[in-house]
């Protein structure tokens, strides 16, 4: 009995400790992103740009490839249904709205979680195992400022950018199917797309992608700092960071979609 309650107590404490750690991580990150540069404690601009290249620029090919496929798939699936009503031109509406509001941000975030979220967890985890984090601290540096903030800023800027690329390329994928398979005509399809899209669709997608970026960054860093027990721990937490990020991305997606649907 005592064992039973003891284990519940330990688990609860362990859980609270994790929540507190996550809370500190978020608060410190926000401080070192927004407050510290203003009060003259500086921001590591150089490494922020390096991270932007790693997170953003080098992800462009894979984002383009996947968005193109998604756009084509959307067009074919929509046409399959719309043909029955002789309304294939509405393929343009479906592709444009689905891509900008939902699939552009979501697929981009999943790619980034797999590419960069895992990379962040592995990098910070390895640094922790090899005492590099301790070394940073012992030299009087703040690990959050050095490691977390450049990555967070890079993600927050680059994921929405990647999402915009994904939106364009996805719609392009729709165009390819519409022109070569559905005989809709390039100009007609584009006109229809422009007519169907409203500003809100794109903004809603970008807001989502910003939130996803934050989730990927924080989860990656959290999992990295929580690594214990050498290379095995790094591997385990890297995998976990991807699983947890994707899970939270989809939860957040549901939440924001509901908000945009019912309120805005």
């Amino acid at each position, binding site marked *: 009995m005592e064992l039973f309650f003891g284990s519940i107590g330990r688990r609860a404490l362990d859980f609270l400790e994790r929540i507190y750690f996550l809370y500190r991580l978020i608060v410190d990150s926000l401080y070192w992103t927004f407050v510290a540069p203003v009060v003259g404690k500086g921001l590591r601009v150089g490494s922020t740009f390096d991270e932007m290249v790693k997170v953003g620029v080098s992800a462009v090919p894979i984002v383009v490839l996947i968005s193109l496929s998604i756009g084509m798939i959307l067009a074919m699936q929509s046409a399959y249904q719309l043909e029955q009503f002789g309304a294939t031109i509405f393929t343009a509406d479906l592709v444009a709205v689905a891509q900008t509001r939902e699939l552009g941000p979501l697929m981009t975030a999943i790619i980034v979680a797999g590419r960069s979220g895992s990379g962040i967890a592995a990098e910070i985890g390895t640094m922790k195992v090899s*005492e590099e984090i301790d*070394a940073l601290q012992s030299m009087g540096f703040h690990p959050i400022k050095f490691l977390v903030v450049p990555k967070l800023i890079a993600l927050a800027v680059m994921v929405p950018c990647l999402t915009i690329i994904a939106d364009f390329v996805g719609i392009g994928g729709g165009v390819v199917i519409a022109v070569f398979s559905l005989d809709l005509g390039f100009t007609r399809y584009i006109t229809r797309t422009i007519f169907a899209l409203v500003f809100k669709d794109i903004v809603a997608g970008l807001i989502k992608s910003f939130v996803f970026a934050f989730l990927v960054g924080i989860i990656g860093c959290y999992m990295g700092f929580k690594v214990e027990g050498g290379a095995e721990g790094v591997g385990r937490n890297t995998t976990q960071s991807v699983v947890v990020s994707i899970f939270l991305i989809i939860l957040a997606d549901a939440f924001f979609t509901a908000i945009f649907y019912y309120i805005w």
Partner: protein
Amino acid sequence: MDSAKREDYIIRVEDLVVAFDSRVVLNGVSLNVRRGETMVILGGSGCGKSTLLRHIIGLRRPESGKIIIKGRDITQLDNEELSKLLRKVGVVFQSSALFNSISVGDNVALPLREHTKLEESTIQIMTKIKLDMVGLAGYESFMPSELSGGMKKRAAFARAISMDPEILFCDEPSAGQDPIIAAGLDQLILKLKKALKMTIVVVTHEMASMYTIADRVIMLRGGKVIFRGTQKEFKASDHPRVKQFIDRRPEEYSEEEIGRYARALTSNSF
């Protein structure tokens, strides 16, 4: 201890108590390090010597006790002040802890670039001097992964002294090195001490290393200080644990202890 004498101590640790969860790792450790001396903290694996070091350099806060470095209790400092104090302290970690994503030169230059407003050309020269001091002249552009273990250690020394610290801490400098490289690192410590007039604190379990570098020795066991004194006193000590350490005798268990251990093992499996 009169107050005039207190001034001489650059590091004072008083009644340090550290516990992980409910396990007490350090139980009332006190020690004093004089300015300019080399203090070796000896002890077997798991005696708490690395934990002690991690607390003295402010990586973890203790449950109770004081750690006074240059007259300031670091357990009471906020992060900002601690970070300032640490700039005058160099640390060589057990695994070298070089930043693997940047070159050796950048590793050494990093503290200078971040903490000082020196010009880049000056920083380059200082980096060269520090690398030269540890015998790694010309290795600026190498990546840490291209260096051997002993060279990594040397690079870690160069980085630790880049801000001309007053105190240098080394965690197991010769762990995992062959005897020749280990002896070379001991010589390096002696050389740096002579050149830079630093106070040096070394945590180790290598007796040979201790005999080469130590002015004074402290031995830890089970989270307590069981010996403190000079090398001569250490050799002459009649403390059974100190003798066991010097003579390299294995742990002896009584029949009763073995029986208890076996019972604990079997009863735990569920």
